[in-house]
């Protein structure tokens, strides 16, 4: 069976005055129907750009400079705008990070839901309204009828994120790309939203691409994990295995720095240093200046992502 989404050797560059800089460097992964995948990394690792690249919505001056994105068997990375538009919000939905900023403040919830449906389906307003109500119920929104007439500022952050999830469900998409969907929310709401997302994906057989820096969340929700560092995927494999038996020193460091992974009373481990900026990536393995295992080869050759143990792919010379 062909994958639902197959990203191959994706490279994204940003055209700056001082020259192009590479934000995503040869990223490959795939997502099967109904599969849930986590894309993990620090800020600036290129997770969000990867997500936006899939629906070709990278902020200017970014552009896809190499690679392919196959979705439902078709190569979509070079689709013209109007063809791409039929995929966005329809076959691939996106959930943004901050629900307070995502909805247009001057239009009602109903307006913003109905217009999305009408952009993709040739249906009447009342039909669209009925679907909107149905999806609001699906995300367990209390008194959904009332919400349609409300403006975003009348709702709390958690409610707004539920509405955005409902909007992303409107057209019954094949994939939802959720870019840090819970980062801007309270911890209690975070768990609710994540549970809801997971449940919906399971029940509706939707693929989920969860972009986050929170390994804890990823390990609960996803089946597969890709760890990104400085624009590259450096570890890729089943969530269970990666979380319990990580291969790449960076992943080991990340997992070691989560409270709960270590006996109470002991200091948390931390990875020394910071991730390099995109203009200043060290030669060889980008992680080498921070790596405990770094050897000469690490500064000379860029490691490729290859099968290591337990079905995990990792990009490291030393393992």
């Amino acid at each position, binding site marked *: 069976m062909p994958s639902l989404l197959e990203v191959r050797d994706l490279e994204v560059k940003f055209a700056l005055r001082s020259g192009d800089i590479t934000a995503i460097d040869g990223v490959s992964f795939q997502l099967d129907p109904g599969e849930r995948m986590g894309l993990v990394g620090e800020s600036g690792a290129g997770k969000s750009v990867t997500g936006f690249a899939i629906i070709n919505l990278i902020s200017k001056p970014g552009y896809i400079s190499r690679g392919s994105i196959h979705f439902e068997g078709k190569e979509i990375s070079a689709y013209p705008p109007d063809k791409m538009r039929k995929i966005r919000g329809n076959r691939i939905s996106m959930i943004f990070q901050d629900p307070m900023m*995502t909805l247009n403040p*001057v239009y009602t919830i109903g307006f913003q839901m109905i217009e999305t449906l009408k952009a993709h389906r040739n249906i009447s307003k009342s039909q669209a309204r009925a679907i909107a109500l149905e999806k609001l119920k699906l995300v367990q929104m209390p008194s959904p009828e009332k919400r349609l007439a409300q403006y975003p500022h009348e709702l709390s952050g958690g409610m707004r994120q539920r509405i955005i999830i409902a909007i992303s469900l409107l057209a019954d998409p094949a994939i939802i790309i959720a870019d840090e969907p819970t980062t801007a929310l309270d911890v209690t709401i975070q768990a609710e939203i994540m549970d809801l997302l997971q449940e919906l994906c399971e029940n509706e057989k939707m693929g989920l691409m969860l972009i986050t820096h929170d390994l804890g969340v990823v390990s609960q929700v996803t089946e597969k994990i890709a760890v990104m560092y400085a624009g590259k995927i450096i570890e890729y494999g089943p969530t269970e295995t990666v979380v319990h038996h990580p291969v790449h020193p960076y992943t080991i460091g990340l997992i070691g720095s989560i409270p709960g992974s270590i006996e109470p009373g002991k200091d948390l481990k931390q990875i020394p240093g910071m991730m390099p900026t995109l203009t200043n990536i060290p030669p060889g393995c980008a992680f080498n200046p921070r790596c405990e295992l770094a050897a000469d080869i690490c500064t000379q050759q860029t490691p490729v992502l290859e099968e290591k143990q337990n079905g995990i792919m990792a990009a490291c010379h030393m393992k």
Partner: protein
Amino acid sequence: MIAFIIRRILQAVVVMLVISLVVFAIKKEFGDPVRDLVGERVTPEEREQIADKMGLNDPFLVQYGRFVKNAVTKGDLGRSFLYNKPNLEVIVSHAPATIELVLGTAFIIIVLSLPLGVYCALKPRSWLSRFTMSFSTLGVSMPVFLTAILLIYLFAVHWRILPSYGRGETVDLFGNGIWMTGLLTIDGLKHLILPCISLSTLMLPLFIRLIRSEMMEVLETEYIKYAWAKGLSPRRVWLVHAFKNTLLPVITVFGVQIGIMFAFTLLTELVFQWPGMGFMFLEAVNRADLSLLIAYLVVVAALFVVVNTVVDILYGFINPTVRIAGTK
């Protein structure tokens, strides 16, 4: 919503009281109305009597109270010795010319600044955008009277296609002699073109730039990016989602600028010999008709306040967050 409107109107009344108080207070510094009335040859005792009779020796607040009372109950803002008519009547007869001038100018500004501002925001690198932006700098930096004289030279003197002064043919709008309008005759409209263009040169560039920068800012927001991610068409993203948010600050500025425009008509009316309130004001200054000056200032202030109140209420209709604050 109703509570919001009532509150705005109450605020407007307070503002009017303060403005009239300030205007009334400067009256004393402008000279002696008794001397203006009776001349030099009357004895000081007789002057005192006249001043007493006119209430000029009453305490300031009593005089001001009388002024407000007359203004509110009888619509009486005093009498102009220059025209020998009640001030309000003089002003009302001059108002239509100025209002039509401002309306025409506002029309030009709205019709041109909205599409141009939006276009410049969407296609900042295009040839038309660059031209508009540099031309608008020129517009801002040219004084109104210079633009006006240039326009007269080109269109009235050189090409002889438009009239250079006056309102041209006017007709009675309501049939009661109060509002003589130039908007309904070809000749009247022709006379309106040059004054309106010259008056708009000052505000038009401002609005193009304002709309452009607001729109550019809105286009960068998350909700616009989300609108794209929902798969909406560019038309819908730009004209429905971005445009309405762009308008919010623009409407506020527009309200203030319309008020300011009433003041700026002074120069335009002078150059084009436009028989409006600005022209009347200059005449009143020349002849030191103090009573008319005060009445004019009060009326212009009232216009300013009314326009701003209307705009604020309009804003409340467009921006849902204001409406909520008002009903709480």
